[in-house]
């Protein structure tokens, strides 16, 4: 019960002080609009919106969560307010889950901005929303834990942003969202299979555009594996680096 009080209040505080600030909300709206417009312009306005939606949703999550979590945690560590959390009588796993849950939620909210925009343009009634939601949660969790991994590895806010980009930009092109994996040069294909977003995006493609390749059970399993692995690896580093 006591842990839940702390968990809920950390989540609430982070949502209020970081994620639901006007610049972040506007980012959530502008980012998918800009991507959609870019693809429309590139394809001569003939693109299938249903094929585009999984990519925009995935990238909204990826860009929203990785840098936000890495930056907010690095910022709190620099200002030493993160020490307040570390000295509280909370299990470290609960504490880090509480810190990351805000970013996971923020990522999922971000993913729904393009969905809301698409609702005005195309029918979305045939989509199974429960697995979509589960997938969005897992994409958001893996992206957030990637942000956590970055946060543990850097000490300055600018480093967090630079390091995030190091992971994010290759992911855009390698995860099969805009260039199908089978169309990538042979030496890049293995790289795309070690990226969690490849599997998350494939689920969205299956459920929304009916274009998936790997099958839902395998995708969910691999995505879950990445989430657990990234969390466990980050926790190992948190214990090693933040409690010296």
């Amino acid at each position: 019960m006591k842990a839940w009080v702390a968990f809920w209040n950390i989540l609430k505080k982070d949502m209020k002080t970081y994620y639901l600030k006007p610049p972040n909300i506007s980012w959530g709206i502008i980012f998918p609009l800009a991507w959609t417009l870019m693809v429309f312009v590139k394809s001569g306005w003939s693109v299938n919106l249903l094929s585009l939606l999984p990519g925009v949703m995935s990238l909204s999550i990826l860009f929203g969560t990785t840098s936000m979590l890495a930056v907010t945690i690095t910022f709190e560590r620099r200002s030493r307010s993160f020490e307040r959390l570390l000295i509280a009588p909370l299990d470290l796993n609960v504490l880090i889950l509480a810190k990351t849950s805000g970013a996971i939620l923020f990522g999922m909210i971000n993913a729904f901005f393009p969905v809301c925009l698409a609702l005005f343009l195309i029918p979305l009634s045939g989509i199974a929303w429960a697995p979509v939601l589960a997938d969005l949660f897992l994409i958001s969790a893996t992206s957030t834990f990637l942000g956590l991994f970055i946060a543990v590895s850097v000490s300055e806010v600018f480093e967090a942003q630079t390091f995030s980009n190091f992971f994010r930009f290759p992911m855009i092109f390698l995860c099969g969202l805009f260039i199908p994996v089978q169309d990538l040069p042979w030496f890049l294909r293995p790289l795309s299979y070690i990226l969690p977003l490849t599997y998350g995006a494939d689920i969205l493609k299956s459920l929304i555009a009916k274009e998936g390749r790997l099958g839902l059970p395998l995708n969910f399993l691999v995505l879950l594996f990445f989430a657990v692995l990234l969390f466990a690896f980050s926790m190992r580093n948190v214990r090693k680096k933040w409690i010296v």
Partner: protein
Amino acid sequence: MPIVEVHHLVKKYDGFTALEGISFHLEEGEIFGLLGPNGAGKTTTIHVLVGLAHITSGSVTVAGFPYPEGLKQAQGLIGIVPDESNLYEDLDGFENLCFCASLYGISKKKRESRARELLEQFNLTEAGRRPFKAYSKGMKRKLTIAAGIIHEPKILFLDEPTTGIDVAAARQIRSLIQVLHRRGLTILLTTHYIEEAERLCRRIAFLVKGNIVRTGTTEELMQEAQQEHMVQLTLSAADPDLSQKISQAFPHIRAEAVNDRTIHCYSGQPVNMTPLVVFLDQLGLSVFEAKIIRPSLEDVFVKITGIERNQMTQEKGPGGKGGGKG
């Protein structure tokens, strides 16, 4: 029974030894001072006690809970006021206190009433709805102390609570510390201000380069310097050979000229003034003023550690505050 026990605590960071096997204890309800210059290991000691740093070797027990296995239980009973105010800049005073209380699982109703109570006690009620970033340094420090006791801990670790704030705010904070002590809180205070330690602490440990070189009550520590009695004489005229003349006439007195007309007389026994004044009179020197000088804690600290006051606040080195290894 001690509420905090530290035995042969060693803390190393990447080849740098911050604490070289220190031992001390805190009795329940006392204010214990760790006095030392910047970089002595005061912040590192606190970091180990609150769980921000691992123990390299040695043992730590807080409120009966041995570290590291009892750390989480102990953390519920301790509060910390770090050397820098580290609350959330965008939250107001009231929200900051409520948030800190929530980390200890305190219910909404209770944390709100406790936050109001503390804001009133610390004269911050009016500022309670202002964001923390708009506070002055003194107000920030007061709110940080309030945040440290919001969950009603048994032990409070105060890391240099008056560093970097103005004199008036520092006085207020010292008064608050005394109030908290009167209410039964056990306090570990680290400081490099000798007067602060002398004024607030019952017992003091001198921490230098990761070693505790002396521990005792202020009276016990003073006694070391009081083994010698000292009298200061202000004279009517100067005599360059006076120190030598006094020492020859009174073999148990060691005289040292402070300036032309002031002389310090040291003796292992109380200095009998009458023969001394008569002797000086015979030399044609009148005594304008004679006063007994009692040694201060600073004299004791300087004598034991060899560190002068101006060295106490020098910038921290690589093991200092910036790296959390003060």
